């Protein structure tokens, strides 16, 4: 990035901050702040250990400096500006989750697709946070990071004092780490009635049980229902190991009978006799993988981390770090809704051909000098593929 580009970006960021609505965290006076500026040195350098006494000071700083990245600490400190961490006197910290689309499994072809996957993962996380952990919607703040993913901030007082290992336990929960599969589908000896031999009974959780157990029942029942509803249900079922035509038909019959389905929902998996334990376990394992949310563990465990300020701009993309309501998340499209700059044309030198979808348009730019709408120009400059002028 050359000096002209730097000056241009600082100027545009300053202009944004002069009218921006910043979402300050609770008790912002107790937070440590950190900023990275568009600087000429090749090494990025963060100015941190900063504290602000009022909202006005924060907005003035942003307007005046136009920093490329703005962060605050998830921690609340007694002395947030003390230069040594020990001297800050840590008091508590918000609970944070980071969904980085870069870390999600599977191949992603475009930036837009990557962001879409991050959104799906965020929904999975929300289900755990609202249903299992019982957080109120108002205490769970979803934030588009402006880069590759989503953050989730929880400010419910019950979690603020949790320490790192305890926060890791929460991450393990949402990502199903350490889940004890053998205790989900187990077998029990049942002594037979007079004259009959003892038999083995499969024990499965019921759909109404709390936590992962109930979730697995519900997944399994709906997964099987979906298969049975297919045109070629019989064939699909016979694809499972050990399932022949007779068993396949029996399974279909079970799912066509509401009463039987209820029994299954209650945890009695023996109605599916014929489906062997290995197959069920494989399906459960797949289900667990699908339902678990991939979050970045070290971020949650770090009770002193700096996190992006909602309402600020991400200097690597020029997009806005955006607070979202859970109801807004569904319709949210980062490459449309987090774009803050306008259509005014800006002379730019594109270093290499680049394609991106922004504001609902497929944008393809060739290499070389050209006029680009400001929102595209800023994005490309921030990503290092264009220079100003």
């Amino acid at each position: 990035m050359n000096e002209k580009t730097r000056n241009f970006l600082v100027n545009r960021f300053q202009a944004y901050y002069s009218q921006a609505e910043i979402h300050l965290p609770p008790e912002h006076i107790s937070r440590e702040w950190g900023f990275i500026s568009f600087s000429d040195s090749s090494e990025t350098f963060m100015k941190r250990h900063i504290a602000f006494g009022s909202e006005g000071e924060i907005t003035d700083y942003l307007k005046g400096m136009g920093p490329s990245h703005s962060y605050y600490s998830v921690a609340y400190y007694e002395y947030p500006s003390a230069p040594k961490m020990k001297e800050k006197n840590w008091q508590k910290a918000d609970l944070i989750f980071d969904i980085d689309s870069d870390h999600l499994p599977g191949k992603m072809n475009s930036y837009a697709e990557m962001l879409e996957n991050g959104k799906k993962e965020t929904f999975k996380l929300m289900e755990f946070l609202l249903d299992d952990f019982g957080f109120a919607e108002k205490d769970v703040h979803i934030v588009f990071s402006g880069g590759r993913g989503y953050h989730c901030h929880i400010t419910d007082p019950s979690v603020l004092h949790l320490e790192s290992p305890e926060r890791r336990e929460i991450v393990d929960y949402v990502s199903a780490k350490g889940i004890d599969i053998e205790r989900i589908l187990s077998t029990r000896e049942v002594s037979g009635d007079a004259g009959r031999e003892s038999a083995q009974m499969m024990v499965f959780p019921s759909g109404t049980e709390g936590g992962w157990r109930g979730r697995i029942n519900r997944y399994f029942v709906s997964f099987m229902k979906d298969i049975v509803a297919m045109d070629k249900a019989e064939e699909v079922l016979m694809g499972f190991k050990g399932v022949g035509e007779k068993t396949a038909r029996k399974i279909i019959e079970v799912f066509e009978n509401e009463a039987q389905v209820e029994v299954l929902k209650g945890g009695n998996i023996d109605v599916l006799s014929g489906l062997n334990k290995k197959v069920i376990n494989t399906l459960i394992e797949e289900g667990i993988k699908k339902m678990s949310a991939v979050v970045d563990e070290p971020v949650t465990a770090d009770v002193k981390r700096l996190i992006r300020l909602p309402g600020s701009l991400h200097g690597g993309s020029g997009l806005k770090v955006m607070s979202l309501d859970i109801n807004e998340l569904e319709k949210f499209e980062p490459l449309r809704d987090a774009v803050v700059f306008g259509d005014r044309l800006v002379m730019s030198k594109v270093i290499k051909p680049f394609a991106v979808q922004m504001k609902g348009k497929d944008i393809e730019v060739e290499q070389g000098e050209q006029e680009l709408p400001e929102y595209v120009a800023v994005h490309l400059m921030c990503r290092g593929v264009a220079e100003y002028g």
Partner: protein
Amino acid sequence: MEERYLALYPFITEASAYVSGLGFSLERLITSRAMDPARSRGVERVLQALKGDIEKPQFLASDDRKVLIELLSYPFSRILVSCIGDNFLIRRYALAEAVSCYKLLHSEPYEFICSIASDFHVDVLFSDHLFDIHFTDYIRLASSMKALEWKLVNRKMQKGHVYISKEELARLLQEAIRDRIQGSLPLDVSEDICQMCAPYISQIQTELQQIKENFGSGDFGAVESSMFPPCMVHAMANVRAGVNLAHSMRFALTSFLLNVGMPVDDIIAMFNVSPDFDLERTRYQIEHISGSSGTSYKPPSCSTMRTYGNCYGADELCSRIKHPLSYYRRKTWFNRHKHEASQQLPFSEKDNE
């Protein structure tokens, strides 16, 4: 809370407030004739802790005096443990106090268990045969439990509430009690006071010495623990002191012991003092490692041990081997040749490297 409860659960806040309210001076506790039974019981508590379990008295309605003695014996025990100031003793003592309460808690009515929990700032509701606690309290209490079943992910949780059985709550409270007692020791006791307690202290020290020596020499039937590498000796001492081992070390120790020929039952017995001991689970894990499910595991190499921070106290011989099992094999070999004994090796000579 009734006084006899305070005597049985002397670590709760109300009990210590009650004792200070009695206005006994430390000096009177240590020197007064009338306090002799309290001091004897105090010594007994510590000795019982060293040997295994602290036995709790049963009180009748008219046992006021007995209640008082039991109550005052607790601070005296703590003074003794503090004067000795040995970490092993502190851990052992805290664990035994906690375990003895765990056993009592089992048979207490649920309201009582809830009131003990609230002393640890845990709100518990009782409904439908289950105790309902907030997940934040749950993970706080269960954080030192290493068995998989205690992980939150394996719990029934709904809207932030975790549902656990009476037995499980008692077990979690045992951890909290142990933490509280262990964390509060050693007390800051003056030289003079310790001087005055000298005769009691020496009794305990003799016993402590004895037990430590036994650990060193180890009574493992066919297995010679004096041939064990330092890392394993250290881990075993920890297990016996009731310190939770990290997963990786637990695995390393178990597989090591199995490989040198220690019987599964003996290993289970050894883990019996471990704070999150659970017989069935432990048996399962150990048998799994020993290969009853078809695979038999070798303990990790020294470099892996080092990576996980499990290499401890490496000695001269360590610098010449790469695997804890080689340590054992070399040492037994040396020993056999030194004594020219014709005995067989106490473990099956498999190639483990």
